[in-house]
Each structure stands twice: as structure tokens, then as C-alpha cells.
């Protein structure tokens, strides 16, 4: 098991190396940073000085090495807009984004898995079809639109929940639901198809032949096995979740990293963009290592390898 975790950690090394490289290329893609970062009427001396200061006069691979080195120290330079270290700006907002992401993941799992299981259990029944369609519709609505509609209905119309901002649990409900709306269908769909696969397996027949109650067969035996691919999918969806955060945070005035990212992109605040992308990638990698560990814990075949 420990070996497995170590092996898993080693396998992330190439990704870890690639992440800062891509962050670096992201800025270079848009041209010479000197032009972007200096005011327009800067003198030639100022430009040269700026280049020297940031190592832009060095060969590109040296710049890349320097960037990677700094990136792993969490140093992406100063935000052009805020004049503060970019990593500080990101880390300040990480709690809010984490809160939102965890809550929506919670919603997604609490809704998606039961939906999937029930749909699989009642395959091709009305319930199944109803769940599948509901879930497909929720996936078909762009999340920003869903968010605005929910604000209109639940905040302005009914006054049940606040329109945005962070604070109490009630503030969390609408953004988390909006963010979860893209995830629920996926989890439900994967759960359903995995459950269908599992329910067809021989061990299910064995469990039934033992005289077990159907709910034990379904919710204990099958779900335990179906859960394994479902967690993998959830892990992979962290990336999508991070993408969704960008829109959701904008609509709901949620003080998180996604909003910072979009503002930074608009303002061409590249140190911040790099920091956001870097941290998102790190979060993704960490979460997926965790997912794999959970996976291993759940699947004895991996655990005892």
C-alpha cells in the first residue's frame, strides 16, 4: 500500500515538471512581457533595466529554469494590478474557493450517486427515465444562466437565499448548487452505468442467492464496487470544477480564486494568472493522488498488490 502511494507520487513528477513549463509558456505566448508589464511611455533604459531585473535578457531556457525554480518556491512575482505577491493573492482566496468546491462536490455526490443507483436499480422504468432526463436538462443549461435564474427565483423572487457573497451557510447554497449542476449528471450517469455493470456481475447473483435483502445487495455489494470508477471520475472532474468556479464565482460575487483568475486575465496580470493556473494544477494533482489512495483503499486488489 505504501509502495503504491509512493509509486503514485513518483508518477506525478512529469506532470509536476510540465505544469510550471506550461504556465511559463502561457505568458510567452502573448509576447514579450516587457511590453505588457511596463507603461507605454517607459524609456529604453527602463526597458533594459526591467529585462535585466527579470532575467529576460537571458536565453529562454535559462528563463524557464528560473521560472520553474521560483514557481516551486511559490514565487510568481508581484501582481501587476495589486503590487502584491501573486501567490499571496491566490492563497488568500483559496479558502473561499475550497469551501465552494467542497460544498458543490458534496451536493454533487449526495445527489448524483443516489440518482445513479436508483436509476440503475429501476432501469428503463419511469423513475429511471425521469432521473436521466432531469439530469440531462440540468447539464444542458449553461451554468451562468442557471445561476442567474436561481438568483432571480430564490433570492429576488422568493427571498429565501442571498444573491451572492460569502458568509453564512445560506450564501453557499446557490453557488454550490450551480457549480454542482454540471457535476451531478456526470456522477449520476457514471454511477448508473457502473451500477448496471455491477448489478449484472456474478457476485450479485451470489449475494442474492445467499438470501440477502435487495437493498444490501444494491447499496452494499454493488455500490462498493461501482464506487471505485465513480471516484476516479470525480477526481478527474476536479479540473472541470475549477473551470466552473470561474463563472460561478463571477455570477455569485464569491470571493475566490476563479474570480481573481478572470480579472487577472482581463487585466493581463500574468503573474497572477500563472499563480492561479499553477495552484489549480497542484490542487488537481493532490486531489487525484488522494483519489487514487482512496481507490486503493476501496479496492483490495490494488491494496494488496
Amino acid at each position, binding site marked *: 500500500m505504501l509502495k503504491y502511494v509512493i509509486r503514485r507520487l513518483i508518477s506525478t513528477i512529469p506532470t509536476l515538471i510540465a505544469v510550471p513549463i506550461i504556465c511559463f509558456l502561457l505568458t510567452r505566448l502573448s509576447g514579450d512581457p516587457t511590453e505588457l508589464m511596463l507603461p507605454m511611455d517607459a524609456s529604453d533604459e527602463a526597458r533594459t533595466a526591467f529585462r535585466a531585473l527579470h532575467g529576460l535578457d537571458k536565453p529562454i531556457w535559462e528563463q524557464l529554469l528560473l521560472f520553474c525554480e521560483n514557481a516551486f518556491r511559490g514565487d510568481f512575482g508581484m501582481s501587476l494590478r495589486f503590487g502584491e505577491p501573486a501567490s499571496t493573492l491566490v492563497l488568500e482566496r483559496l479558502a473561499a474557493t475550497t469551501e465552494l468546491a467542497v460544498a458543490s462536490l458534496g451536493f454533487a455526490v449526495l445527489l448524483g450517486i443516489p440518482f445513479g443507483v436508483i436509476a440503475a436499480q429501476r432501469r428503463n422504468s419511469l423513475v429511471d427515465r425521469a432521473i436521466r432526463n432531469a439530469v440531462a436538462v440540468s447539464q444542458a443549461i449553461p451554468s451562468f444562466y442557471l445561476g442567474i435564474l436561481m438568483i432571480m427565483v430564490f433570492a429576488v423572487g422568493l427571498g429565501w437565499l442571498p444573491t451572492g457573497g460569502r458568509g453564512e451557510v445560506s450564501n453557499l447554497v446557490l453557488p454550490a448548487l450551480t457549480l454542482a449542476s454540471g457535476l451531478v449528471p456526470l456522477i449520476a450517469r457514471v454511477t448508473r452505468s457502473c451500477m448496471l455493470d455491477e448489478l449484472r456481475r456474478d457476485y450479485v447473483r451470489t449475494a442474492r*442467492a445467499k438470501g*440477502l435483502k435487495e437493498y444490501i445487495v444494491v447499496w452494499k455489494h454493488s455500490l462498493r464496487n461501482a464506487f471505485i470508477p465513480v471516484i476516479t471520475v470525480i477526481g478527474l472532474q476536479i479540473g472541470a470544477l475549477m473551470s466552473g468556479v470561474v463563472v460561478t464565482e463571477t455570477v455569485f460575487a464569491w470571493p475566490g480564486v476563479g474570480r481573481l483568475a478572470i480579472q487577472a486575465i482581463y487585466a493581463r496580470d500574468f503573474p497572477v494568472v500563472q499563480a492561479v493556473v499553477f495552484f489549480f494544477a497542484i490542487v488537481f494533482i493532490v486531489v487525484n493522488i488522494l483519489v487514487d489512495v482512496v481507490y486503493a483503499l476501496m479496492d483490495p486488489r490494488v491494496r494488496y498488490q
Partner: protein
Amino acid sequence: MTQKSSPYFSELRADSVSHDVVLSIAGLRTTFRTDAGEVAAVDGVNISLRRGKTLAIVGESGCGKSMLSLSIMQLLPGNGRVSDGRIDFEGKMLVGVPEAEMQAIRGKRIAMIFQEPMTSLNPAFTIGNQIIEAIRAHDKDVTFSVARERAIKALKRVGIPAAERRVDEYPHQLSGGMRQRVMIAMALVCEPEVLIADEPTTALDVTVQAQILELLKSLQNETGMSIILITHDLGVVAEMADDMAVMYAGRIVETGSVSDVFDDPQHPYTLGLLGSTPKISEDAKRLVAIKGSVPPLFRMPTGCRFHPRCDFCIAECKIEGASRMSEISEGHFVACIRAPVEENCRELAE
């Protein structure tokens, strides 16, 4: 030879030897909803299982023998149902029994083991857990530790070495033969009266198969349980069973005691099976194969379902009623109007 015809012969038989019969099935029809409409995988099957004896159901794939066993357990897939007939188990009619009642019977009184020991155990739980679950499903009062002791004992009984250690292992850590032993331990832990063994050795190597067959026999001697053994291997039948029923295309074509059927095979299909089986003890020049292949369920021939593949087929075979059972000798029934073939093909019988 006189022919007594009866559509529901086992009812008659059940009357005469009812004290001896644990499980009897009459006129069982199991159907499936498919795209091609409703098809019958089991169509009018009559069998009875004698107490302490082994009844083998033999046939090729798709003949409905597995569906027959699942019908007894009422574990048919979602699109299947028992649409007709009755299953009597120790005086209890099983068809139409509420699911909760059936759950109490499954595993406790009628247990079942399956073909693939590799996939029939849940990979996510220890084998001990799975056996304990079977115990506690039928007796809530058993504590976990007591159940665990019983599980270890059950494992020992099926010949698993170091059962105390193995009980905490996962299925993937065991070999195929060991897994089938675990399956048997799990099935027998509640001391059922009937064990349905669905091709229990098909997936195993021949040396392991020999061990498992021996194990089943000795366990039967020990507990006096009755076994329904489903197999395609006439060798296994000859070795294990007391009675046998040959199934073809959802119907029983010949049934009787194993010695009756082997000594005096009547149905052309039974003959074909015997002729197709290569013998380890003899150099055959050529196998007498059955021509053609099994028809699909939704395109069953009329009359005797074997007639398109039968060498003795005549026009009457193609009309309904050609597959009526007749009793050739005491307890030996054949569903063939051309049986015995010597009498009907005198010109060829030398």
C-alpha cells in the same frame, strides 16, 4: 412397448413417491421479454429431486438449464419471469411467493453455487465477511464473532488450509479451486436442504474439478442434502448423479435414473450427445456429430424442437404434440415419438 402419455407426468410420479421428493417442478415455463417479443427459455419442464440424491440437468449452452435453476431460486434477470407452472419445495409452493419469504429460503434452505468462482465472489469484501454475511442474513441473533467461528469451521470443512488466516483474505488472493471451495462453504454454511450447483467445475482445471467433485460427494454424504447439478459434461453426470434430465431448447427430452439413461438412451439428442463426446478410453475413428446448431429462442421449430437436427425425423415430428413425454420404463421418460429407434428403423437395425 406401450406408451403412457401424460403432459404432467411428474404429478403422477409425485403422488407415488412424494415422501421421497424434496423439490418438484411441474409445467414450468420461464419467459423473457426481448426485442423479438416474449420468448420461453424454459418451456414446460417437469422434474423432481429426491431427498439426499443428486439430479443432474444436462444440456448444451442455451438449453435453459441455468434459467431453470434461477427460476427455482427466483433470481431471474429483470426481463424474465416464471409465467406458468409450479415449483413445490417441501410442501411449499415457491412460484408467487413474496420476495421477503423467498429471501428467507434462499441461502438458508436452498443454496446455490455458480460456474465462475472468479467472479462469483465480491472482490471488495473478505471471504470471511461474505460467509458471515450469509450466516447473519438468516439469523440476526448470531454475534459477529460466533459467525466468524462458524465461517472458519465452514472453510475448514471444504478443505481450505489455514482457514483462520484465509478467512480474512480477499477473493483475488485465492486460486480458482480455493474460490470454488469458498463458494461451497458459503452455500453450505446454513445447512441447506437443497444445493443447486450450476456448472460448478466448468471453469476449473480437470485436476481441480476432480477435487471439487469429490468434495461435493463427501459433503453430500455428510449432510444428506439433495443436489441439483447443472452441467454439460456427461462424464460429470455419470460420476456424480443419481438421476438425470437431458434438456434441449428449453424442454426436457429424456429423464430417468443415470443408469437407465446411459444404458438405454432413447432420445436422438441424448444419443447425439453420447456420440459427440470423444472418449478418453478409446480411439474413435470418427465422432457421430449432431448436425446443425441449436435454434435461437425466438425461432423455435414447431413440434419436437430437435427435429431439424434429427436423423430420424419424420413428418409427424414437426407437428405439435410430438414432444410429449412417454414412459419407456419405470421412471425413464422420453419425449420422442420415434423411440425406441430400433423399432422405428428396423431396416437399418441389421
